[in-house]
Structures are given as structure tokens and as C-alpha cells.
């Protein structure tokens, strides 16, 4: 079964040439890997390749075909691009520009929102202050913007990557 796998910025073509129990012969971009792979714990794989012992952990994202993959010191974003995924991606709109909203990379609590809907703000203006574990972080707009919509209020508990403000 050949398919594309996106790993960070690289797109790899991967094919399973042979499989017998835990042994697999895998082709990645034309190079062959004869490996032995077993899942030893939930989402943790042990791989032996040319004798070397690798431990690889997968953290599935919401979409079951997307993973964060951790090796000893590195962490990768990996997407399996099979036929279904390709179809869905072809239908996706192009304007996937995340700068039309403000969100935070971690959960926390809204401390203050020094702007209101309709405000015109200049580049570098703080539009929301969020605290987590006693540390406060300010989030700013990078260009001149208009505040379109404020989706949270002071004191709200927010999730990581939750959209807090829409801007335009």
C-alpha cells in the first residue's frame, strides 16, 4: 500500500513491500528499510533497524491520520495522506490564513481584553492578556487590524488553540 506521508515540511512516498509478523520491508522515497516493529505500549513502538533499537511514540491528533511523533530528541508533525484525505483536502478552501484570529498555544484564564469590537488597532497592540500557572502573557496583533468579534470575556477559562478574537 503506497501513499504519501507529510513529515514537517517534507513529503515522503512510502510503500510497504513486504510484511511477516513484526518484520516489514518499507520503501521510503526509493530507499529500502528492513525493520522489525512492535507496539510495546499504547502508542509506543519499538523499532529495530540494522540492530539499532529505536523507541517512537505517537500522539494521535483529533484527525486519526495526523500524529505528533516523538523520537528520542525530536518531535515531528506527521500526516498520512491517503485517498480519502486527498479528496477532503482538494475540497478545502484556500484562505487558510490563521492571522484572521487570535488564539494561545496553551490553556489558561483570560485576565483582560483591552480592546472592544470595532476597534481599529495598530501593529503591536496588545489585544488580550492570558494567565496560566501564575504567569501572564500578552498577545498582540502583528499588523494594523480591526477587531471583528470577541468570543471570550475576562475570567473565562480557555483551551489551547481556542479562537479568542476574530480580526480583519
Amino acid at each position: 500500500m503506497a501513499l504519501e506521508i507529510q513529515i514537517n515540511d517534507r513529503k515522503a512516498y512510502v510503500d510497504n513491500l513486504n510484511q511477516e509478523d513484526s518484520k516489514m520491508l518499507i520503501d521510503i522515497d526509493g530507499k529500502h528499510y528492513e525493520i522489525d516493529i512492535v507496539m510495546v505500549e499504547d502508542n509506543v513502538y519499538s523499532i529495530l533497524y540494522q540492530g539499532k533499537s529505536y523507541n517512537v511514540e505517537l500522539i494521535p491528533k483529533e484527525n486519526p491520520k495526523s500524529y505528533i511523533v516523538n523520537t528520542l530528541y525530536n518531535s515531528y508533525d506527521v500526516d498520512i495522506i491517503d485517498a480519502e484525505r486527498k479528496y477532503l483536502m482538494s475540497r478545502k478552501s484556500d484562505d487558510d490564513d490563521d492571522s484572521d484570529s487570535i488564539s494561545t498555544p496553551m490553556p489558561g484564564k483570560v485576565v483582560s481584553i483591552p480592546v472592544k469590537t470595532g476597534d481599529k488597532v495598530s501593529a503591536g497592540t496588545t489585544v488580550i492578556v492570558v494567565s496560566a500557572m501564575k504567569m501572564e502573557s500578552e498577545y498582540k496583533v502583528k499588523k494594523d487590524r480591526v477587531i471583528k468579534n470577541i468570543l471570550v470575556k475576562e475570567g473565562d477559562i480557555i483551551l489551547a488553540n481556542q479562537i479568542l478574537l476574530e480580526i480583519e
Partner: protein
Amino acid sequence: MIQKLLVANRGEIAVRIMRSCREMDIKTVSIYSDADRSAQHVRYADEAYRIGSPPSSESYLAINKIIQLAKKTKVDAIHPGYGFLSENPEFAERCKEAGIEFIGPDSKAISVMGDKISARKTMQQAGVPVVPGTTEPIIDESLVLNKIRDIGLPVMIKASAGGGGKGMRKVTEEKEILAAVRAAKSEAKDAFGDDSVYIEKYIESPHHIEFQIMADKYGNTVHLFERECSVQRRHQKVVEETPSPVMTPQVREIMGQHAVNAAKAVNYHGAGTVEFITDDDLNFYFLEMNTRLQVEHPITERVVGVDLVKEQINVANGNRLSFVQEELSQKGHAIECRIYAEDPDNKFMPSPGKIKHISEPLGLGVRHDGYVYKGYVIPIYYDPMISKLIVWGESRTEAINRMRRALYEYKITGVKTSIQFLEKVMKHPEFEKGIYNTHFIENNEKDLLEPEDCEGNCEEMAIIAAFKDYLTKQKRMALRQNGASDKNSKWKMAGRTKH
């Protein structure tokens, strides 16, 4: 005799205290906020009670509620841990009024040491060297210029009520001084409700070296040697070790004696820590005294061979210290790394969230004091420290090698952690040589944050693991779709199973 004890804290320190209680056959009572119902300290205690909503002010800092619960549960003592109410003189006093033993010194010792200006004065009277500077709050700004000419630039302006770097300003040129004093005052007022500030000489290349002390209620006071705590970022300790790689036996003895004198000057009893700032030539000055158990106390426990929590309880029981100074010695070398839920690549931003997977380091010379477990959600309300990894080695080199090995074994996913950053610290040549001061992290930030090279084929192995997982899932889905046609299979199965 203390037979039942309330731990007015959470996280690793609450569990650590309860472990010693269990070994002493003392029953424990935990308190928890709504954010902590699933936390380890609730599961570990003999009894556990809700104390309030998540913000500390409504739970772990709520003196009235805690005293009330302590009375209701008929505990003999309260252990405050570190942080929260541990250095709150009012809380110590309220415990006393309620007839409950507060595991710590008298409220008076806490008060004197809690205010930096009064602490400096008391130390000067006791003959303990303090950093050259003012001994009174700055009121008359006109005297400031004379003073800094006496001391010599650069100087630090510090808040008397301060802590954590707030209300602190470095001044290198005379003309900056008045603006800096005013800014520090305003910041101190905001942060602590007290605008008293004072001036200290700025120590170049400073080392943070502290002494553990222990005293009983009969004036017997000993020190348990030093801890080197100069690996810091934003005035927060990250790695501690003992013995200090820069210490000499002569200076150790003198500093230890001053630490004991510092404690005696405030009629101290219980466990405490006297912090010194030293320069490269081991000139040392009293910085402050922490009137509680310290986060990094385990390295002292390991090298000296005592259980400090048990000794705290022993002293609280009105017993004499179970050792005299001459019986104490240091054996080998211990290092502690603090593991934080934070993202070193993103300005060390806190990273609360759910622990997806955890593998803890084990084996010879490794102690691990933690409280999280797989599936636990680290709440956003409290300190981001996940655990403390403590190793011991016959030599400093062995301890460093062992810490590297332990960090290598330690895996936590779901939240970002400082584990890899700490591995870099352990491998840094300056740390290896023991030549570092409190500027170590900021001076070496680039090296310490550089991503580790992929070893061999790790990108390909990541692809392979994801590919294999995908194939397995596809196969399972195919099987399930075929199996689904067999409508009554579940009922049939149940009927066939013997109970």
C-alpha cells in the same frame, strides 16, 4: 505526640510530606481545591476534604477554612510545605491560637525574616555579613547619591517585602538612580502593597549558596552544609547540587557557623535555609532566610543521610534534635533537577494539560519526587513544577553522568517539559567543570536551547511508526466492518461466557 497531621499544600511536596508521615505511622489529612479532586495528594492521604474553588486565595491560602477544617478533623499539627502559607506569620499564629502545632518556627521569626530590611538589621546585629548597602528604607531621596558613592556602583535596588525578582532594579550609572528608585517603589507597592525599598551593592558573578539549618526548641541549632543553587532563570532555581563545586572546607565551616548564628538570632526552631550570595572569591553575604522546608531539600537528605520532614516533626513534638553538629558529614554528591511543565523553546511558557504518557527513571542512585500520573491533567492555577529528580553519586562526575542517564530515561508527553533543556545543562562544559554563576543560563541560552541532532534515522523511524499505526488501524477498521454484519454477536457471546 503528633498522631494526625494536616498538609496545607498540594503537588509533590504534599505527597513527600505524607510519605514520611506514613513511615512514622501518623495519619494524614489532605485539602483540595476543585481543580485538584484527582490529584495525587488526595489519593495518597488517609482523609481528604474540599476546601474551595481553584484560585489559591479561595483554597490553599484560605486561612480560616483551613483552621476550621483542622479543628473539625482533630489534627495535632499542620505542615505548610513550601509556598502558599508556609511563610505567613498570621497563619502560624492562628494555628497556635487553635492549639494546633504549626510545623515551622514561631510567627515572630517568620516576620523578622520575611521583611528584608528587618532581616538585614537583625543579621548585622548578630555579626552575620550582609551585602553592603542601606539598612533603612529609602525615604529621603537626597541621601541616596551619597550612599551609592559609599557602596560603589553598580547597585541593586530591592523591595523589602520582595521575592521572585519583583521590585528589583540594577543601576550602573549615577544618573539612573532616582528614576530607578521611584520605579522600584511603584512596582513594590503594586506587587506587595508596601513600597519600602533599599539599596545593596551589586555582586558581579554571583553564586547563590545556601545552608540548611535545623534547630530544636531548646536552642540546639546545627547546619547540614550547603547547597549550590546558581543555575537559575528569572531568579528561579532550576538545578541544585551539594557539595558546591566552588566550596572549600574552611569557608564551609565559617559560612555554616554564620548560618547557625543567623537562625539563633531569631530563636529559630524547625528546618530553615539561610541563603548567601557569594562572589568568585567566596566572599559571602547574607541574602535572606527561608523559614520553611526548601524545594531542594532532598539533595541535603541524600548526602547527609537524614529525613528532614521526620526531623521537623521530631522537633515539633518537643524533642531534642536527633543529631549534633559533629555527627553530621557529607558523603558523595547529589544533584536535583526540577522538571517543569513548560516550553523551553517558547520562552519557558507554562504548559499545563493532560499527561498522555510517563516513564519514570529508576535504579541505583535515583530518587524521584513527583505527583503526576498518566491521565492526570495539570491544572492551570498553580506552580508548573511536575517533579524533582534527585541523583546521588560517589563523585560529582558520577552524579552528573547519573543525572544524564535518569533524564534520558524520563519521558513525559502530553505537556511540554524542561527535560531536554536539563539534559543540555548536564552536558554543558561550564556546568561539567563546576564553573558557573547565576548568569549561567542567560549567558548560554543559545547552546542550551539548540535542538538536539537527530540520531541516525529518526525521521525515517517516525515515518515508519506512523505508517505502521495507520496500516494497523485500517486493518482493524476493515475487520470491524465485516464483523458488524453479525448482528446478535454481543448477546451470543454473553450467553456463552461462564460467570
